[in-house]
């Protein structure tokens, strides 16, 4: 229970601080428009009433936390999950392409890392390109991938998943290269004294040694994968998904919708990172890790 108290209190106090700051910002940012409305309506409200009004605007510049919370609650729990206004439905659309892209990205990342560790030419030829690939802004690449794949008849889940793959393979590659190279010389010498083959050294030493690195990099990769899926939804004409909700909200100035979609996205991201973290801890425990 100590870890609960150690973690919960600091985290919630930061959260409380953020909420207070958010309210202050909401009042300040929504005030000009409210003043405008009041002038046109020839009203001179008291300061308390004025502040109250800044927090209940239908299309505020910055929605107040409770407005986002109400919108989030309605769109999550009160709508049938088959409705395209349901956040659960939209989150699922994004989640499915995130997971597919993450699976592809992890597999691709591991394959590239194995190649880099075992083939010296790949190490020198591939690594610069892999690093360069991540310096290209994904927002510029995403529409091209969607458009090119649509031209050859591939639409829907796959193009979005590919963008997720593009973003998520990189941390896995970097982490796994490090992980597969993590055994010290002494362990490699030991395998050498047994006259172990390269594949025996790989499976019995390099792979188990790389597992902690894999899970650390998968945590980064799964979050990147979600970003990729959301970005991939922006140019698809806003059909469905968290990205589509964000875009639609921006079109129609539904700032509250944008923010609740954002909250949904963050919750999905947090859950994904948590699941990967728990999986990592379970695997570590199964591999005889010392309990923390």
């Amino acid at each position, binding site marked *: 229970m100590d870890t609960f108290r150690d973690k919960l209190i600091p985290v919630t106090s930061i959260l409380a601080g953020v909420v207070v700051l958010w309210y202050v910002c909401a009042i300040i940012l929504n005030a000009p428009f409210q003043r405008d409305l009041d002038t046109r309506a020839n009203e001179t409200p008291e300061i308390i009433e004025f502040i109250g009004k800044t927090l209940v605007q239908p299309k505020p510049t910055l929605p107040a936390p409770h407005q986002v919370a109400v919108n989030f609650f309605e769109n999550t729990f009160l709508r049938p999950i088959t409705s395209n206004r349901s956040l659960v439905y939209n989150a699922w659309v994004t989640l499915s392409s995130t997971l597919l892209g993450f699976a592809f990205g992890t597999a691709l990342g591991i394959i590239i890392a194995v190649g880099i560790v075992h083939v010296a030419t790949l190490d020198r030829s591939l690594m610069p390109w892999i690093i360069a690939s991540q310096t290209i802004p994904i927002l510029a690449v995403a529409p091209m991938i969607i458009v090119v794949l649509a031209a050859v008849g591939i639409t829907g889940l796959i193009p979005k998943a590919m963008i997720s793959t593009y973003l998520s393979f990189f941390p896995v590659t970097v982490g796994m290269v490090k992980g597969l190279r993590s055994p010290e010389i002494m*362990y490699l*010498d*030991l395998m050498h004294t047994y006259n172990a083959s390269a594949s025996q050294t790989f499976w019995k030493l390099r792979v*188990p040694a790389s597992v902690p690195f894999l899970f650390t990099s998968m945590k980064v990769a799964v979050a990147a994968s979600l970003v990729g899926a959301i970005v991939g939804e922006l140019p698809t004409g806003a059909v469905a998904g968290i990205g589509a909700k964000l875009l639609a909200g921006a079109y129609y100035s539904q700032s509250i919708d944008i923010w609740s979609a954002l909250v949904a996205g963050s919750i999905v991201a947090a859950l994904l990172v948590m699941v990967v973290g728990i999986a990592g801890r379970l695997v570590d425990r199964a591999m005889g890790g010392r309990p923390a």
Partner: protein
Amino acid sequence: MTGISPAVVAASKLGLTFQTNDGPVQALSNVDLTIGKGEFVSFIGPSGCGKTTLLRVIADLEKPTSGTISVNGMTAEQAREKRAYGYVFQAAALFPWRTIERNVALPLEIMGLSRAAQAERIKRTLDLVNLSGFEKKYPWQLSGGMQQRASIARALAFDADLLLMDEPFGALDEIVRDHLNEQLLELWSRTNKTICFVTHSIPEAVYLSTRIVVMSPRPGRVSDIIESTLPRERPLGIRETPEFLAIAARVRDGLRAGHSYDD
């Protein structure tokens, strides 16, 4: 065949020069050495004298740049390929994700032994190093001395006749070290293995060895070889006897003669 068993290790005019960024470094120079079956040979000397390098050459972890080395009558490489020796490193180098028994099984798995044969050898070697009952423990659950014993068990598991040990007890405290030295001697007399043991402790070298190879640095070379006159049966108390102290004094003299720190 002449009927004389060939030397376990035979080095002749052995030299090894490392090419480093600061130019060549001569780690070994003109080493002549023959080690017979069942001997316990210690290599002692200050750091940089090439004692670990010599052990690594025997193990085919380094290639000599001049001279010849044979292990069990073969080249060092052939001997390594035939798993002619077990190697114990300065650190236990146990795989943290394997239990003690799976660590001991590692070389056996690599050699492709059946599960049943593995189990039998694991039991026998863990008995030999007094680690029975710790099969299912992970390395972090054991003390440093026990971990090093597990790594000795791993080196013994595949029945190599030659045991190469590179300062195996260097990181342990003196009480544990005494205990392990006693156990190592007992193990040696029971198994009749040939042991090459690198150390920088004079009492350890004298206590354990039938022969002590004193080495000196820059370039690494053998400066003296001392035959021990101590009996094979050695209680810890033997270290207070005049005979023991005389050998230790000779080792110390040998080290001092080859010492190049004071020039």
